[in-house]
C-alpha cells in the first residue's frame, strides 16, 4: 500500500506542476507553435517592448503593495481585537466576505460605486480597485493572524501590564513581536490574492487602471500568443522568488 501511494504521489505532483513547467519551457521556443524549434528570447523581448503589459504591471504592483500594507495593518489590529473578545458582527461579515463568490463581490461593489457616482463626481479607477482589494484581502489577514493568536499565552501580556506597561505598550512590545511570522504570512497571502485577482478587479477598474491579470486575460481569450507564455513564466518566477525570500526572512 505504501509503495502504491508513493507511485500515485509522483503522478499527482506531476499533474500539479508539469503544466506550468511546459509553459515555461515553451516560452523559450523560437516557433509560434507548440512544436520545439530552437532556443530564443524573442518572446521576452516582445514582452519588454509591450507598453500595455509594462503599464499594467506597474498598476498591479502599486495596487497590490498599497492594498497589502493597509489590509495587513488593520487586519492585524482587528484580529487582536477579536482575540480579546469576539464580535459576532465583525466575524460574521469577514466570514461572509470569504465565502461570497468573487463574481458576486465584484458585481455588488460595482453596483455600490455606480450608485455613489450618482451623487459625486468620481469615476472608477485605481482608488476603487485598491478599496476592493483591501476589502477582499482583509478576511485572509484576520484568519491567519487570529490562528497564531489562538496559541498565544495571554499571561505574557498580563505580566507586561503588571510590570507597568500600558495596554498599548503591552500589545506593541510583547504581543506584536510574537505575531511577526503570522503577520508576514498574512501579508504574503494578501499580496498574492491581490496581484492575481481578475474577476473582482475587472468589474471595478476604470480605463486608466488596467491590471496585469486583466491584460493577461484579454490576451488569453484571444487565444494563441507565445508572448503570453513569457509573461506567465515571469509572473510565476517572480512570485516564486517572493515566496522563497519570505521563507528566508521568516527563518532568520
Amino acid at each position, binding site marked *: 500500500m505504501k509503495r502504491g501511494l508513493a507511485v500515485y504521489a509522483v503522478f499527482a505532483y506531476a499533474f500539479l506542476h508539469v503544466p506550468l513547467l511546459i509553459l515555461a519551457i515553451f516560452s523559450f521556443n523560437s516557433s509560434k507553435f*507548440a512544436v520545439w524549434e530552437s532556443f530564443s528570447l524573442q518572446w521576452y523581448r516582445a514582452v519588454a517592448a509591450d507598453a500595455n503589459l509594462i503599464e499594467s504591471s506597474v498598476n498591479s504592483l502599486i495596487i497590490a503593495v498599497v492594498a497589502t500594507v493597509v489590509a495587513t495593518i488593520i487586519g492585524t489590529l482587528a484580529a487582536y481585537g477579536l482575540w480579546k473578545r469576539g464580535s459576532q*458582527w465583525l466575524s460574521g461579515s469577514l466570514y461572509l466576505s470569504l465565502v461570497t*463568490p468573487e463574481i458576486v463581490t465584484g458585481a455588488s461593489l460595482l*453596483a455600490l460605486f455606480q450608485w455613489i457616482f450618482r451623487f459625486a463626481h468620481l469615476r472608477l479607477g485605481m482608488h476603487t480597485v485598491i*478599496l476592493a482589494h483591501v476589502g477582499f484581502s482583509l478576511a485572509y489577514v484576520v484568519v491567519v493572524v487570529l490562528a497564531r493568536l489562538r496559541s498565544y499565552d495571554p499571561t505574557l501580556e498580563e505580566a507586561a501590564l503588571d510590570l507597568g506597561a500600558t495596554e498599548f505598550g503591552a500589545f506593541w512590545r510583547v504581543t506584536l513581536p510574537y505575531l511577526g511570522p503570522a503577520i508576514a504570512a498574512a501579508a504574503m497571502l494578501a499580496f498574492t490574492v491581490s496581484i492575481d485577482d481578475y474577476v473582482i478587479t475587472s468589474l471595478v477598474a476604470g480605463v486608466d487602471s488596467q491590471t496585469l491579470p486583466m491584460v493577461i486575460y484579454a490576451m488569453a481569450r484571444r487565444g494563441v500568443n507565445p508572448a503570453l507564455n513569457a509573461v506567465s513564466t515571469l509572473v510565476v518566477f517572480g512570485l*516564486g522568488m517572493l515566496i522563497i525570500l519570505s521563507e528566508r526572512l521568516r527563518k532568520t
Partner: protein
Amino acid sequence: MRLRIGFLAPTAILMAITMLAPLAIIVVYSLLTRGAYGGVELPWTIENFTRLWDPVYGIIFVRSFWIAAVATALCLVLGFPLAMFIARSGSRKNLYLSLVILPFWTSFLIRTYAWMFLLRDTGIINSALQALRIIREPLPLLYNDGAVILGLVYGFLPFMVLPLYATLERLDPALLEAAADLGARPWDTLVRVTLPLCAPGIRAGAILVFVPCLGTYLTSDLLGGSKTVLIGNLVQNQFTASRDWPFGAALSLALMAIAMVLLFAVRRRGEELL
C-alpha cells in the same frame, strides 16, 4: 477595552463599505425594475426572482451544480491518497506539503491559461499526438465541460488536500493497529476506520472546493468557451453586456443563498474559522 474598539473600528468600517453596503444595494436592486438605459428604476417588483424559475436559467443552475459536484468528487478521490501519502511520509512531510501549497501561491489565472496552452487544437497534446501519427485531426480537448472540470480540479485540489491532511495527521495510529489486530484488511480499515474519522476534513475540503466552483467565472469562461454558461458567467453577463442589473442582483443573491445553505448544512460545532 477602549483599545479594542479602536483596533476593530478600521476593519469594521471597511467591511461595512466593501461587504455590507454592496450587499444592501444588491438586495434593493433585485427588487427594482431594469432601467431603459441599463441602471434601475421604480416600481418595486419581485419579477427578478420569479424569472429565476424559468427553465432556461434552471438548466444553468443544474449544470453549475453538476460541474461543481463532479469537480469536488474528483478532488476528493484524487486528493485523499495524496493527503495520506503526505501524512505518512515522516520527516519529509513539510517538503511534500509545500509542493501541494506552491501552486496555490502562484497565479490561478496563469495556471488556467497553462491548460489552454496544453489543450487547444494546436496545443502541445494535439501536436504531440499528431507528430506521433496517433491522430490525424486534432482532438477537441478545449472549450467543453470536461476542460472546465479539469481546470477546476487543477485549481482547487490544494484546498481539498490541506484539510484532509490536517485530519489524517491527527489520526491516532493505534486505532489503525487495533483494526488490523482485530483482523481487518487494509481496505476495511480504510473504509471503516480512516474515512469516518476523516469526516471533518472531508466536509471542510468539500465546502472549500464546492462553493468557489459553483460560482466560478474565470475557469468556465477561459476553458469552457461560449458553450459553457454557468451561474458565474450569467451573473457577469447581467452586469456587463446585458445591462440587466436587477436580474443580475437577484441571481447574485440566489447564488449566495445556495452557498450559505450549504455552509450551514455541513457546519459542526467547534469547526469555525473565525
